[in-house]
């Protein structure tokens, strides 16, 4: 075979790997019942593909070929190990006679993989690491880099999570209809965590963090394709609408620009259009929840030509509905900020003070910076200074701290 042809096969195998490796892995995990064995089998199957496809040509259905090759490789590996472990021949025999064979149930396998990686019996940081590793095919180094942790920490989280899946027997299953709402919540939460880590990143290079947001959006799209649920639409819409503002939310030097001051011509219109149409689909289903409502609020912002032209009446109305669906002090705080825009700073300040007086959000920097901002607009500069100081103390993000310092310098004495 010429060198050229070998290169071509390698390229084909690479392309198939990018397009199919997660689907093949998802199916192999079901057939083999073990993450590590499935990963090994996946690796062996692609190694075999390089060899065989060069000789016999690319099979008509590469995915099916890879799954069945991976399975046979796993059986071989089990046989070899069987010399040391008496229980393994039995497993190998069972695998060989598995009547399920290579089913076309691939979509379900990918959903199984997502729901297993995001099982609520796993720790949230383990859910995130496992999802990025198994579903998105990020390396442990990439995950560690994105979350500013050591690769060994991420590797340990993944090993422990796989150990728990095996030892506690977390099933490789799409949850039953009764459990689905709660289980979808966990999956959506994991995806949103990944997105926020990329979107509100404090440090690290912008590029790497950006990838994390892009990864979350890809996950959202995949989940929507597999499970067209209104909250999945809502989350994808919310991420797209946030992402649309990325080019406008920082200066080239990395300084933060608030929504009101952003150059709206920099917003990504394509993402806004997609986000808005997803919001409409979600809301018209009448089974929407907090994600669709947050996306609806983001859509109102996205559709306003100017900050002053924002429909604050509608935004406050949406926050009222959101508070009923998901009452939390943070949602209350955001509603207070919207009320300040609708009815004036005094009205917003009263609401924020009520939240803080209750003892909620006293350690949340955004509560204090929102309070400071309203005090500033009311000309109560000493109070504004005190609240900005508190916010600066509590903030852990460098650009945010610089932003607050800028505001402090701008305050009249």
């Amino acid at each position, binding site marked *: 075979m010429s060198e050229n042809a070998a290169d071509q096969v390698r390229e084909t195998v690479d392309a198939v790997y990018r397009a199919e490796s997660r689907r093949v892995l998802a199916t192999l995990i079901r057939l083999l019942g073990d993450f590590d064995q499935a990963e090994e089998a996946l690796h062996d199957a692609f190694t075999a593909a390089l060899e065989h496809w060069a000789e016999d040509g690319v099979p008509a259905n590469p995915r099916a070929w890879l799954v069945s090759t991976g399975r046979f490789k796993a059986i071989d590996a089990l046989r070899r190990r069987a010399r040391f472990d008496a229980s393994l021949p039995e497993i190998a025999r069972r695998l060989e006679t598995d009547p399920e064979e290579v089913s076309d149930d691939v979509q379900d396998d990918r959903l199984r993989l997502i729901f297993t990686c995001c*099982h609520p*019996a796993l720790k949230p940081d383990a859910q995130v690491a496992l999802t990025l590793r198994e579903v998105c095919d990020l390396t442990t180094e990439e995950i560690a880099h994105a979350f500013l942790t050591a690769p060994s920490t991420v590797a340990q989280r993944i090993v422990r999570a796989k150990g728990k899946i095996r030892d506690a027997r*977390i099933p490789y*299953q799409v949850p039953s209809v009764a459990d689905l709402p709660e289980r979808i919540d966990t999956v959506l939460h994991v995806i949103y965590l990944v997105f926020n880590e990329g979107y509100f990143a404090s440090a690290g290079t912008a590029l790497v963090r950006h990838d994390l947001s892009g990864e979350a959006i890809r996950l959202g799209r995949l989940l929507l394709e597999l499970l067209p649920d209104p909250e999945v639409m809502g989350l994808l819409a919310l991420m797209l609408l946030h992402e649309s503002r990325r080019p406008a939310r920082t200066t080239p030097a990395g300084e933060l620009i608030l929504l009101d001051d952003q150059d709206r011509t920099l917003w990504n219109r394509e993402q806004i259009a997609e986000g808005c149409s997803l919001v409409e689909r979600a809301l018209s289903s009448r089974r929407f929840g907090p994600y669709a409502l947050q996306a609806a609020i983001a859509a109102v912002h996205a559709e306003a030509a100017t900050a002053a032209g924002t429909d604050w009446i509608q935004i406050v109305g949406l926050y009222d509905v959101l508070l009923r669906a998901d009452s939390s002090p943070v949602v209350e705080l955001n509603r207070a900020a919207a009320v300040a825009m609708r009815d004036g700073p005094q009205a917003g300040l009263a609401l924020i003070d009520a939240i803080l007086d209750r003892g909620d959000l006293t350690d949340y920097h955004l509560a204090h910076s929102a309070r400071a901002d309203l005090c500033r607009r009311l000309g109560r500069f000493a109070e504004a200074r005190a609240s900005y100081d508190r916010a600066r103390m509590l903030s852990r993000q460098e650009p945010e701290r610089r932003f607050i310092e800028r505001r402090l310098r701008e305050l009249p004495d």
Partner: protein
Amino acid sequence: MRYLCLIYDDEKKLGSMPKGESDAFMGEYFSFTEGIKKTGHYIGGEALQPVQSATTVRVRGGKVSTTDGPFAETKEQLGGYYLINAKDLNDAIQVASKIPSARLGTVEVRPIQEFNQP
């Protein structure tokens, strides 16, 4: 697969329950136990006497030391257990979530370690 469901309750809260309420609570336990016997989940289960009856035993340097009270002082105390048979963790969680104390206290679900017989 076998799982142990460890039931943790706040004994003070249970102790201060009005009689009618605590009778109803016991009733719930009886019908729960009947239910998991019918579904084949039940292997065993017992309620424990209050934690004030607990004794902690350690042997250090060959010497037995005995102290009054539980191993750890916590807000919720181990009050009983069920040993169940379940298909997988999801199945076990289903069963555990129906234990009456899951509503008031906490249920810890632990898979049983199986040792291969030589």
